[in-house]
């Protein structure tokens, strides 16, 4: 529907309407996030004011977040460790599997893809009981591996599914011409396929990282030592200076700190992320 097909007045109407719609969508998506940022900048005594912008901008909530009492800095480090390890391990394993699923012919491929898809739809809570029991028997409660290993149950299928669709997009002739030039299949994969697949792998990495950074159920079940808890769990258990008031200001500040890296990532790589989400069609 190019603009020239319409009579002039009609275009203006449609244009105005769609601009208004776009405006509504942006407000819908960003208003709660904006409110979190604004609330985090209010000093504690003004926290219940509902002005559009804080009367006095204050960073006291951010100082409170990083006071040693809350342990939040350590929580961020824990989240980072878990998310990075999950991303790297899932990608390393999934790259091989998806290459095979996308490029090689073998019996049982369809079934395998279905199994991978099925596992990605799996309710995580259905495996939490045996994992909790096993991990306590092995003294793994409050360890990183107790978070990392269960996280693989959702990140690995996601990675395989996504990467398979990326590998499929590449022309079949790539390996053949590499091998004509004297590469072994392994070399063709390493020197030709992997570099070309790098954007797809990077996209998948972002999506997995965000998923692992979001994880809550496994962490809240397996970890009870505050020094080992990831930021999501710590945030949910924030208490204020006194037991009786919820520290909304510092909760919002912590939320901003946890989200800002992801928002920046989204802004930088939005095109890739959308392509990745559309390719995988998986999870939020």
């Amino acid at each position, binding site marked *: 529907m190019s603009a020239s097909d319409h009579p002039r007045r009609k275009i203006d109407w449609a244009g105005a309407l769609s601009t208004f719609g*776009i405006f509504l*969508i942006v407000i819908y998506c960003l208003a709660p996030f904006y409110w979190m940022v604004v609330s985090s900048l209010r000093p504690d005594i003004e926290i219940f004011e509902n002005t559009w912008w804080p009367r006095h901008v204050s960073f006291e909530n951010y100082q409170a977040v990083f006071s040693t009492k809350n342990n939040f800095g350590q929580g961020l480090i824990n989240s980072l460790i878990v998310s990075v390890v999950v991303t790297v391990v899932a990608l390393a394993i999934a790259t091989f599997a998806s290459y095979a699923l996308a490029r090689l012919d073998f019996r049982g491929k369809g079934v395998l893809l279905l199994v991978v898809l099925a596992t990605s739809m799996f309710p995580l809570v259905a495996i939490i009981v045996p994992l909790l029991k096993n991990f306590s028997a092995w003294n793994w409660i409050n360890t990183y591996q107790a978070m990392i290993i269960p996280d693989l149950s959702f990140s690995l299928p996601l990675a395989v599914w996504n990467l398979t669709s990326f590998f499929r997009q590449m022309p079949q002739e790539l390996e053949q011409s590499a091998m004509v030039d004297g590469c072994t299949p392994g070399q063709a994969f390493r020197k030709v396929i992997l570099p070309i697949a790098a954007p797809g792998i990077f996209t998948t990495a972002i999506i997995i990282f965000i998923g692992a950074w979001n994880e809550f159920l496994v962490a809240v*079940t397996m970890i009870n030592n505050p020094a080992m808890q990831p930021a999501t769990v710590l945030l949910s258990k924030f208490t204020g200076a006194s037991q009786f008031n919820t520290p909304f200001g510092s909760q919002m500040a912590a939320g901003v700190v*946890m*989200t800002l890296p992801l928002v920046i990532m989204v802004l930088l790589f939005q095109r890739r992320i959308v392509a990745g989400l559309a390719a995988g069609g998986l999870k939020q």
Partner: protein
Amino acid sequence: MSTNIYVPDVNRRSKASRAQSRLAWLLITPTIIVLTIVIIVPVFQSLQQSLYGKPGLDPETGFVSDVEPFVGLDNYTSIFTDAGSRFWTAAWNTTLFGVVTVVLETILGVAMALIMHRAMRGRGFVRAAILVPWAIPTAVSAILWGWIFNQNGVANAILGQHIMWASGNASAKLAIIIADVWKTAPYIGLLTLAGLQVIPDEVYEAAKIDGANAWKRFTKITLPLVKPALVVAVLFRALDALRMFDLPYILIGPRKNSVETISMLVQDEASNLRYGSAAAYALILFLYVFIFAFAFTRITHADLGATAPRSGGGRRRKLPATVFLPQGRPAAVGATSDNTIARTSERSKS
């Protein structure tokens, strides 16, 4: 003579395909091992666990035992006795959240996709904005909405009310639904938009020439053609909503009747060391999700693209969900409209 040439040829070919198949299995083995360890084995352990009770006094010896007694199907049958009321509440909440949030976010998401599809300017910015709710960790969005729905929060200020959102039954449910729809409607919108963008303009132009009005074009062209993409998005969202945990757990709190889902019930049972009943409830949820997914894919004929349509689909009657995977697009559509989101944005940028 000719057979002498013919036979080695076949051997070579099958050797090559055998080598390929060997390489494939070698590459796939690590994935299979990990998935076996983190999913398949635990499911069977869960199944076994669900037949055992909580260790306690041994009725025969009178000593405290730390061995879990075998109770058979007691954990399952207790659902139909008094112990089950909490389960039924959780099952009802799970279903309610699953259905209501998915219906609402599908309607909103499709509306968003249609608006974004028509909009010529500002696409990149909108796409970034729409990804923000998706990227915010659920734990953070739960805290954020908890603050908005605080008694002195901005929701009450806008409404001019003093609703105690978290303590009411209906209001707590409503808070969860609003927060979940906010977070996930944009995601449906995004995937629907991807589906919209592979519909060639020529189809609409032909329909216009035939005299179809805007509503007709929407119901007869847009919806059927976008359905495969939409069905997959809705399926994944529904499965996600049925296992909802973080949002009610943080926004309203653990062990709150008003919003407890089956996932929360399982986690609570497990963390109180009632492993047997936790496993039983978890397996019921598993079965529920499985039946839902199965029925949903059957009713909507969702093609999840897992069957790898390499050879081109002569037998395909409809546009499959594999429109997400470029090689899966039927040639008729793929040839005319290769405008994936990425390319569109490149064009809009330049």
